[in-house]
């Protein structure tokens, strides 16, 4: 036999449920602009019918409905889109940093312009032609020395500036490492909170969102994968569990674990003398060290068997440059620009080529200069300091006098300009030391190379930015709050609430009839 007040109970549950739905709508609206927030919905379900089967169940027709309840509050999210989003984020992070590094290099080299190394070279050769035309003229010779000094200083300046940026990149790597470590720690902390709450049956939607934001951010720096590990106890079926963050080095069979539950590893990016931090000497990157020293390993090891990916725990293991997946993540991009494995990388290579140019130039030029005679019959002298064979150290001899410039090919012939003609001619001569290019030809090919790399970086940045936006839109289509939708829902839930209230009034009136109106015949 059904209960007298069953009708009230049914609609009370309806009132409560619609109220929960309204509040969730309110929460969605409040968080419409929260970064990383996914809209939430109340999963509604009907309460079990009456009567429930049993030996003493009353015999009556039908399985009478008893109302509704909120089964769970769940965020609307697609893990697959998240994975796509993070892949594009890897690439965007890489190309963003590459573009920045190349842009800075372009700014320093400032070509084509009226004040770069190329122009200094031009000025130098011009001054030399003036000496060719006026080999005896001390003023022209003085100008040549001044222009040579300007050329040397152009090299010195460029070298210094490039090294400054390289050192900044080193500092950037240190900052990136700290960011990555901080993200790993924060993810582990959220894992800890989630693992404490979920066994009680709660679904911690807002913690999931916060954690996903961190994972997104982590992927800007380092491409990582995630794997869900369900919580034990009385966890809800829609709960997401703790996240295990893994990183797969290229050429390695299993991914390595960076975060597992509330435990986390620390990475450090090292060169020969310790952590890279932008201090001199700017030694190249050698290894990425993954270290679990801060954690109680016994807590981590057993549950790892449960992972699908077969990830392993890497305790204090080091990974060299070849283990990075190319083109992914800010960290790798900055390592690429800063330098790695024996002078490779954007900045070391550019510095190397400058040195190569300077070495060939100084050696060839000094040899030519040595074979001639100055106005004061000096011979066999260097023009540039013999020891200054790098862009940092190239220098015109301090004690060189205008008369020392060996313009003549013969002793004691002041009007002889044969030797300086030869020196001037070397502007257009190909050099074996420069892979068969002229000095300026070699420099131009350096600039061309840089330009092509820059062009590629800018294009790739734009492309990955566009791709990420389209994935971001897909994600937004799934998860972001639409105010129109929330308004519609609001009206829907409000009306349902009102209808429930009206139902209660109806039940109240029927009860009124029974309680107050029955058994009073004729009154």
């Amino acid at each position: 036999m059904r209960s007298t007040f069953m009708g009230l109970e049914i609609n009370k549950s309806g009132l409560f449920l619609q109220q929960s739905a309204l509040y969730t709508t309110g929460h969605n609206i409040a968080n419409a602009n929260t970064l990383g927030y996914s809209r939430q919905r109340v999963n509604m379900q009907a309460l079990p019918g009456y009567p429930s089967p049993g030996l003493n169940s009353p015999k009556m027709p039908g399985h009478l409905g008893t109302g509704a309840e909120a089964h769970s509050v769940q965020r609307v999210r697609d893990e697959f889109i998240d994975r796509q989003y993070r892949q594009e984020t890897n690439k965007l992070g890489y190309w963003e940093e590459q573009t920045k590094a190349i842009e800075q290099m372009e700014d320093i080299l400032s070509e084509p312009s009226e004040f770069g190394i190329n122009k200094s070279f031009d000025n130098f050769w011009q001054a030399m032609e003036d000496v060719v035309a006026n080999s005896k003229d001390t003023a022209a010779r003085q100008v040549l020395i001044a222009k040579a000094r300007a050329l040397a200083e152009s090299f010195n300046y460029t070298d210094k500036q490039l090294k400054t940026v390289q050192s900044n990149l080193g500092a950037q790597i240190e900052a990136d490492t700290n960011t990555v470590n901080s993200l790993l720690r924060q993810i582990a902390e959220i894992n800890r909170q989630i693992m404490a709450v979920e066994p009680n049956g709660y679904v911690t939607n807002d913690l999931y969102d916060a954690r996903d934001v961190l994972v997104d951010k982590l992927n800007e720096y380092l491409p990582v994968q995630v794997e869900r590990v369900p919580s034990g106890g009385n966890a809800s079926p829609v709960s997401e569990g703790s996240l295990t963050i893994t990183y797969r080095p290229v050429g390695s069979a299993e991914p390595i674990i960076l975060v597992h539950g509330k435990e986390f590893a620390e990475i450090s990016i090292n060169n020969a003398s310790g952590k890279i931090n932008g201090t001199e000497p700017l030694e190249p990157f050698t290894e990425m060290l993954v270290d679990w020293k801060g954690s109680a390993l016994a807590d981590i090891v057993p549950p790892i068997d449960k992972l699908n990916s077969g990830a392993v725990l890497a305790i204090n293991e080091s990974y060299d440059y070849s283990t990075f997946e190319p083109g992914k993540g800010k960290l790798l991009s900055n390592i690429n620009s800063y330098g790695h494995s024996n002078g490779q990388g954007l900045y070391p290579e550019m510095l190397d080529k400058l040195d190569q140019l300077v070495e060939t130039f100084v050696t060839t030029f000094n040899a030519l200069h040595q074979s001639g005679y100055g106005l004061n019959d000096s011979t066999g002298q260097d023009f540039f300091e013999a020891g200054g064979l790098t862009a940092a150290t190239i220098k015109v001899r301090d004690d060189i006098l205008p008369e020392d410039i060996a313009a003549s090919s013969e002793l004691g012939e002041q009007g002889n300009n044969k030797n300086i003609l030869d020196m001037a001619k070397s502007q257009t001569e190909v050099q074996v030391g420069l892979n068969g290019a002229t000095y300026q030809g070699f420099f131009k090919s350096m600039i061309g190379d840089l330009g092509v790399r820059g062009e590629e970086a800018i294009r790739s940045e734009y492309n990955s930015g566009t791709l990420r936006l389209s994935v971001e839109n897909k994600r937004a289509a799934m998860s972001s709050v639409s105010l129109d939708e929330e308004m519609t829902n609001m009206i829907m839930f409000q009306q349902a609430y009102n209808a429930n209230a009206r139902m209660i009034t109806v039940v109240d009136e029927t009860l009124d009839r029974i309680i107050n109106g029955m058994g009073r015949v004729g009154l």
Partner: protein
Amino acid sequence: MRVTQSMLSNNMLRNLNTSYGKLGKLQEQLYSGKKITRPSDDPVIAIKGMSYRTELDRTTQYKRNIGEANTWLDTTDDALGQAGEILNRVKELVVQAANDTNVVEDREKMQKEMEQLKRQLQDIANTQIGDKYIFSGTQTDKPLYVDGVPNPNIVPGTTGLDADIEIDVFEAVRINVNTPGKDMFEEIDNFMDTIITTLQTGTGEEIGELLGDIAAGTNDSLADIHGTLLKSRADVGARQNRVELMEQRLDLHEINVTKQMSMNEDTEYAATITELVTQESIHQAGLSVGAKIIQQTLVDFIR
């Protein structure tokens, strides 16, 4: 597909950013007058630009060198011209002296003038540009004559007296600008001595023979010497022509390179401004459409 406010604003933001980027680029092109400001804008234009700059600097320098070559050649030409004048005067005097009606005093006077003319020719042999003696080969610091006699510092075997001085006037083109004159002026000087001696001692017939019309080819004669001088001068003239031609070629080359450089990297204003105006209107449209779409939601209609 669900479309939400954040998607609209994300899209709008990115499109506006891209549009601003394009406007910025166009603005930069218009301000700087250059299509590119960094190699990554267009590596090919950048490299070509560097080459054209070098080419232009070299052309400027070659033109400067040509100025120098002109100074040398013009001065040499002048000097040789003057020497020719003097030889003409010498000829006049010798013709006059050959006349046996001259008394001894007359020939003495002529001899005096001859000595002056000899010194003048020596001065011409010492012609300078700045502090350079132009007829001394590459020994430009050494005059050919000092105090009326050959420079004692020029000992026999001194190198470079007949060496050329060359100047670059174009890529792989050199012009020798000097005229080594030691031998020629020595010849002239010696001949002047012969004239002076002959004037002292010789008969009219002997003096007449100096003119070279009578016993040509047997010995130095005035005609031979004049011939040598003219040959030198003709050579200088030929080189002056060459330099002039080269100068015209350089002018043309400079114009060509400047034009190519401009075509390579200079902003085409008409096209760029048109593009800017188009881009501006696209930007305007984007802004106003964005403003319309973003502000309206259902919230505005539920009361």
